[in-house]
């Protein structure tokens, strides 16, 4: 049986290596036929092995012995599976486990990671113990004609223990989880706390738009009815606070400063996902949402930490939103305060010349051509 499994595995591996059909525009029917033939050969092999086993079984019976002891065979396979599975799980944990996200780059992310570690340790103990017991029992208590099972319909004491034990463990997890969650989700700036930087992120098919407040630190209000080609977000310019808003292309964030993301969507639901900061919240049309967090590791620091000079923090979409869902990314750069201020001063205002014209405002000093080009690029 196992041999058959291995054989099949080996063959699939082999086919994987030879690598599917060639890139010819025409269907390569010989390739298709090759795979079908291969499959039939495997089936044939299985049938032959089956027949051999049957004949072996019959000869045993003719000799007056009992037939194949399938119960024992299966019990042994269970044991083999247990050992192989444990090794496989260990391998997966070490090799693939090391490919997971680096340490959290935000204040609350560290707390989430701590809780993740605690939960992982607790659940993995249960995982290994129960799986070992499960497959261990299967091997230990395999069928025997000489034995009868132990009649044990219930045992109230032990049942109470294993109801209360998980209840206690889960209560601990719930209590910690509940308070961590409440703290993370608290979006308002507390009294005396320096105000968060407001960053406006708006999702649409299939890109993110970013808007930063100007010198007043306030973002102007928006209304979807005001959306035009030049005013993609529908910013309301009847309000003073809108005038100095900035439109930016990359999300720059100063390190160790609280940031409040104002999350919205124009068309369908998107989700702002920044896994390195342990940040995620859906962008829902008609329902503005917020997420407050403090980045702690700059992009440069992370690059040296990971020994990857090309590393970038990213924000991407994590809620199915259409055909381009799989490529809706924006770069996030965490920088020092000085770098941040320098970058901020280079950003262009949201109130572009085209928009000024549309709103019948006085023309700006900049030449029009350039701004139109920039708009075209943004589109």
């Amino acid at each position, binding site marked *: 049986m196992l041999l058959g499994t291995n054989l*099949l595995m080996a063959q699939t591996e082999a*086919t*994987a290596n030879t690598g599917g*059909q060639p*890139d*010819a525009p025409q269907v390569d029917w010989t390739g*298709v036929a090759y795979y079908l033939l291969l499959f039939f050969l*495997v089936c044939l092999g299985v049938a032959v092995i*089956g027949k051999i086993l049957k004949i072996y079984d019959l000869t045993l019976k003719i000799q007056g012995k009992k037939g194949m002891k*399938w*119960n024992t065979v299966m019990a042994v396979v269970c044991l083999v*599976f247990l050992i192989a599975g444990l090794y496989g799980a260990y391998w997966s944990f070490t090799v693939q*486990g090391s*490919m*997971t996200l680096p340490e959290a780059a935000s204040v609350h992310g560290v707390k*989430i990671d701590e*809780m993740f570690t605690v*939960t992982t340790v607790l*659940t993995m103990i249960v*995982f290994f113990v*129960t*799986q070992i017991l*499960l497959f261990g*029992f299967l091997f230990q*208590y*395999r069928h025997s004609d000489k034995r*009868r*099972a*132990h*009649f*044990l*319909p*219930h045992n109230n004491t032990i*049942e109470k223990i294993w109801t209360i034990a*998980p209840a206690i463990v889960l209560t601990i997890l*719930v209590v910690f*989880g*509940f308070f961590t969650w*409440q703290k*993370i989700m608290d979006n308002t700036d507390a009294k005396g706390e320096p105000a968060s930087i407001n960053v406006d992120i708006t999702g649409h*098919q299939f890109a993110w738009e970013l808007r930063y407040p100007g010198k007043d630190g306030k973002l102007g209000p928006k209304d*979807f009815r005001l959306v035009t*080609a030049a005013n993609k977000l529908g910013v309301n310019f009847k309000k003073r606070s809108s005038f100095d808003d900035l439109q930016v292309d990359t999300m720059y964030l100063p390190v160790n400063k609280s940031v409040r993301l104002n999350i919205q969507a*124009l*068309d*369908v*639901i998107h989700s702002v*996902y920044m896994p390195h900061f*342990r*940040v995620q919240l859906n962008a829902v*049309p*008609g*329902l503005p949402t917020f997420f407050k967090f403090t980045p702690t590791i700059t992009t440069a620091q992370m690059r040296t930490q990971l020994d990857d000079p090309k590393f970038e923090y*990213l924000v*991407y979409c994590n809620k*199915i939103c*259409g*055909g*381009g869902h*799989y490529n809706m990314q924006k770069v996030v750069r965490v920088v020092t305060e000085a770098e941040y201020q320098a970058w901020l001063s280079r950003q262009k205002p949201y109130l572009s010349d085209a928009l000024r014209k549309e709103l019948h405002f006085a023309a700006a000093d900049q030449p029009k051509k350039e701004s139109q080009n920039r708009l075209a690029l943004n589109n």
Partner: protein
Amino acid sequence: MSTLAVHDHGVAHHDDHGHEHHHNQSFLSKYVFSMDHKMIAKQFLITGITMAVIAMILSILFRIQLAYPEKTFPLLTTLLGRFAPNGRISADFYLSLVTIHGTIMVFFVLTAGLSGTFANLLIPLQVGARDMASPFMNMLSYWFFFLASVVMLSSFLVQKGPASGGWTIYPPLSALPKAMPGSGEGMTLWLISMVMFVASSLMGGINYVSTVLNMRTKGMDLWKMPLTIWALFLTAILGILAFPVLVAGVVLLIFDRSFGTSFYLSDIVLNGVQQPYEGGSPILFQHLFWFLGHPEVYIVIMPAMGISSEIMSVNSRKPIFGYHAMVYSLIGITVLSFIVWGHHMFVTGMNPFLGGVFMITTLIIAVPSAVKTFNWLATLWRGNIRFTPAMLFAIGMVSFFISGGLTGIFLGNAALDINLHDTYFVVAHFHLVMGSAAIFGMLAGVYHWFPKMFGKMMDEKLGYLHFWLTFIGAYLVFFPMHFMGLDGVPRRYYAFTEFVSMQRWLTVNTFITWAAIMAACAQVAFLYNFISSIFIGKKATQNPWEANTLEWTTPVEHLHGNWPGEIPTVYRWPYDYSKPGAEEDYIPQTVPFSQTMSSNLPHDFEDNPKGLEELNKFNSTLKANEQVK
């Protein structure tokens, strides 16, 4: 047709003239528009298996895309035409594949295929009834399901392809035909299909509940019912209470799509054009959807739990450990499953306090699940385990339930869910805990009750091959996905080529795809075994597994009304396996205690003082005799 009519019809005829009158049924009324619960069960099973194979092929198609995002396969263009131009599945069709795979598997295979098959087959047979409470409604239930399946599959034939907003069809994506191709006619067909499906499910569910409550045979009180019946009964209650909410949600979505209402839509600018919707909330749909959607995952897993409990007890030759605890944990799961739906919505932007409450209820539901797991382990402990294919699949179900259930503790924790939501961690979690576990429960049921359904035995060795390849394959597919999720790889991505950070998972994706193909090929062993055994299988004996439950007291040849004579009376619970002092290692439910004096225990007479007196008398005479000797 009323309950009474069926009863009288069955009893009167069987008592007087045997069962000759059944032979003059026409082909149409026997095999197609049958009102016999056993035939309807087979219809559900075969439709379910067909749908499962289709959904499995869909999954292989999108797995090929994920493993070889930059290769072209001209064969795909030949097979799929405009959906796979230039030998590559298009991004929109990829989402259609994912959506329809999920929809078919969750609803058509694991709800209708699982509950429909085993509730229909087992409820009348295990509680001792001649048929369902309303056989005609039962037939309608199947045909509505069949129609729903046809409509769902027909969406592959419309110009823009099937629905593609994910099986959860969140608006506005699903509400705006211009948002994606699949939200056009394909979505309309999806909605029509689901309304019919829910109608089917309700008709079935009402039947199951009324049969269990009203038509149990003499002596079969609720605490003597096998765990399969308990599970199917509670599943039906869940379905009756939860599915109408989905219909409500779907009907409102139909209104938004076709009649210009704004239940779910507000402030939308699609491709630069303002839409005339105001005041609705997309979150409302998610609440309505998950009010069904979460009970739905228990609708899927509870029958699998019941089936596995029964099979593990029979094949360990040991009573199920903690029968009462098993029932109470099922009831606990049923009740709690209605107040946990919000854990699917932690990061939608709903009130964080609400998220906190849902997190508490969600982690509470882990307690009954843990109790069930420990009880299964205790059932195996010191058993005398026979490895039938059914037993192996039941064990596989337990293994998957543990592996997938534990990751639920991560996802149920709102704080951890922030970073895991909608990643491959979730995909791994639910495919193990409700996908693989439930399908293994279903396969266990098929192997176990095949002799009852078709009067033939399935080939055991092919069953072993099928089990190990599928079991190993499923772990190889889903285990690595946890780590992809922990690296922040989102689900429902057409390709991971656009992100430098995700490209290193490509080799893992290729491996997963080949593991999936191996597991899919293993299903050929099952299909061959299933079909060939119907025709050339070894003839089954009446009670091939030496089980206690009532269905094994019926004759191998099916007859309308199930038992040729009177319906047997039940005297004991269904788990008297390996009782000390008994002759055999099993005592069927129909054997009265008076015939098993040597094995009776005081516990058997808890609410029967007369019986206890008899037992004491018997024991004292036994002692007296021994003393004489």
